[in-house]
């Protein structure tokens, strides 16, 4: 009798689990969560939209798409354009003044139309919670659901005449025909049917992995290296009000992002007619001529500088902050040296400040293969 009972229970369990199995004939979509490692001192709050969680498969796909020139939706060799056409790893994912196709580091679209602003840093974006773009036009609480995050930037770049000048339907249809991509989309998003929404999500996931946090200054923060005396002198200037007073907008030890991601009029102009400044977003008169304070990480290689790329070198930027600052009603109160024209650095102080800024260069990031172009694309 005991055996009968045991057999009955086993049979019930077998039927039970067989029933479950029969209900599901499709391989379950189980992507692997991608954990972002938080570098020392960095924020723990990440800007990752709830409908696009980070996955290993999504990041891998995003890397292919980021570098694949067929993102233009075209296949002719003269018509290829990818994110990496402008965003070069060796220039911290900006064009850089030495870009072979964009003289001076001023990109233009596939049809030759110049982009209206200079490029912004494309690193440590996962910690930007105040808005993407020079004026922060994409922000998480934007009433416009199509203008909130990096995913939306991908779509805007695909469509903009001064960038890819593409067509999202054509782009997703092209990738649908390329062997290997549908399978990668299935792994990342559970379906071989490619949508432009998922293209945007994958590229945004890859973009969120572009974390630069291993500069000489980071190693100094960890106690691993010592800064030279000129670098320390520059650090002192960077972090003192009587010196350069850079830290209030650009961070430092207590804010190792080296930006607040906030928007300031830093005294470049006295007349404001740019239709892409912060005022356009907020309507606040104090935001005339205000733009995002960029991170200074890797700034040495990411010229040209300022929203319009008016400065080619860091030295020119330091000269501007030293003697070229202009007063206007909307200048940020943090520019408290304005009535002296700037911070009035001596040549030695300028050299020291530059020495410190160079400690923010992260060569390991700019050569890390996991951020670089894949050895081959899915159809190769």
């Amino acid at each position, binding site marked *: *009798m005991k055996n009968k009972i045991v057999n009955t229970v086993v049979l019930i369990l077998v039927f039970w689990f067989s029933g479950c199995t029969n209900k599901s004939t499709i391989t379950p979509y189980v992507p692997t969560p991608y954990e972002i490692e938080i570098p020392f*001192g960095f924020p723990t709050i990440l800007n990752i939209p709830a409908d696009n969680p980070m996955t290993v498969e999504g990041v891998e796909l995003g890397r292919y798409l980021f570098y694949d020139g067929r993102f233009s939706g075209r296949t002719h060799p003269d018509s290829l354009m990818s994110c990496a056409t402008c965003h070069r790893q060796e220039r911290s994912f900006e064009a850089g003044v030495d870009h072979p196709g964009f003289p001076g580091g001023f990109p233009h679209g596939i049809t030759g139309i110049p982009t209206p602003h200079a490029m912004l840093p494309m690193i440590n974006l996962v910690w930007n919670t105040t808005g993407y773009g020079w004026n922060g036009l994409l922000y998480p609480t934007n009433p416009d659901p199509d203008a909130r995050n990096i995913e939306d930037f991908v779509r805007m770049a695909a469509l903009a005449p001064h960038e890819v000048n593409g067509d999202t339907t054509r782009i997703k249809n092209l990738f649908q025909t390329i062997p290997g991509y549908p399978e990668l989309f299935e792994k990342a998003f559970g379906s071989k049917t490619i949508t432009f929404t998922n293209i945007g999500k994958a590229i945004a996931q890859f973009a969120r992995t572009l974390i630069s946090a291993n500069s000489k200054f980071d190693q100094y923060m960890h106690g691993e290296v010592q800064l030279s005396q000129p670098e320390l002198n520059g650090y002192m200037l960077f972090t003192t009000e009587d010196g350069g007073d850079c830290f209030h907008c650009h961070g430092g030890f207590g804010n190792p992002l080296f930006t607040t991601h906030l928007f300031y009029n830093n005294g470049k102009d006295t007349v404001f007619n740019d239709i892409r400044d912060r005022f356009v977003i907020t309507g606040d008169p104090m935001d005339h001529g205000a733009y995002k304070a960029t991170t200074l990480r890797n700034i040495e290689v990411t010229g040209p500088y300022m929203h319009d790329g008016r400065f080619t070198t860091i030295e020119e930027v330091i000269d501007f902050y030293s003697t070229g600052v202009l007063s206007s009603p909307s200048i940020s109160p943090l520019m408290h040296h304005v009535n002296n024209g700037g911070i009035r650095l001596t040549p030695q102080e300028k050299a020291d400040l530059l020495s410190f800024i160079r400690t923010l260069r992260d060569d390991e990031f700019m050569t890390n293969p996991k951020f670089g172009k894949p050895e081959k694309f899915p159809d190769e």
Partner: protein
Amino acid sequence: MDKLFRQPIQLLYFIAFAGVFAFTGCGSKTNNPEPTTGKLTLHFSHKIDSEPIVFDDMRYVNAAGNHYLVNEIQYFISDVTLYHSNGTSLLLDQWEDIHYVDTDLPETQDYIFKDEIPQGTYDSISFTFGISEEKNHSLMFVNPPESFMFWPENLGGGYHYLKLNGKWLNELDQAAPFNFHLGIGQIYFSYPDSVSSFVQNYFRVILPASAFNLAVGETKSVEVIMNVENWFQSPNIYNHNTHGGDIMQKQHVMALAVENGWNVFTANTMTYK
């Protein structure tokens, strides 16, 4: 029905009864005593001459005669303590009690305490303006906006207690920015490179006329008002033309600001929810 078949049934009965007893026992232990506490919220507002601040408007005149505007105010308060009429005091929320206030971020302007507060009559409220030396450590806040308040290591580290940013009309009638910032001060052996010691500039504020009664189950809201003009007038008349646009490296000026800060805050009428 044989013996082998009965045994599992008995086991099931045993488990069922044991479960019933267990849950009954839990239920008898969770009889809540009568509540004896309420809740407290501080709401921060910012005024000049008894009126809410109109930001970015050069409409104000301080005690020194400087015309000025205010652009933004950001600060920490901590160690909020209630003084009960029975002579006891209550430090609220212990180590979690450092609160950031930002005039640009409305969500920071209400400080809702986690602690349940015993009912009764409280004579006054006090708090630390800034952060005490014991708690003011660098990288304590890694997330914005608090992290943006960091105070550089070479100036003492930790965090700004206060950023009060604005502009005044200087002697040349130019709009000149001022950064009225408070934090750890420095005594220099050789300015600006060699600091011989640091000065903790945080201070206690005892809110005048802040007595209140708290009934059981009640949430009491107290308005804490920063009267900005007092930073510049009492007991020290503060002249921007004298002290300039920045004071983080001027301990003698921050000391004046600290003395004025004792009188900056008042409490207003309690509101009941």
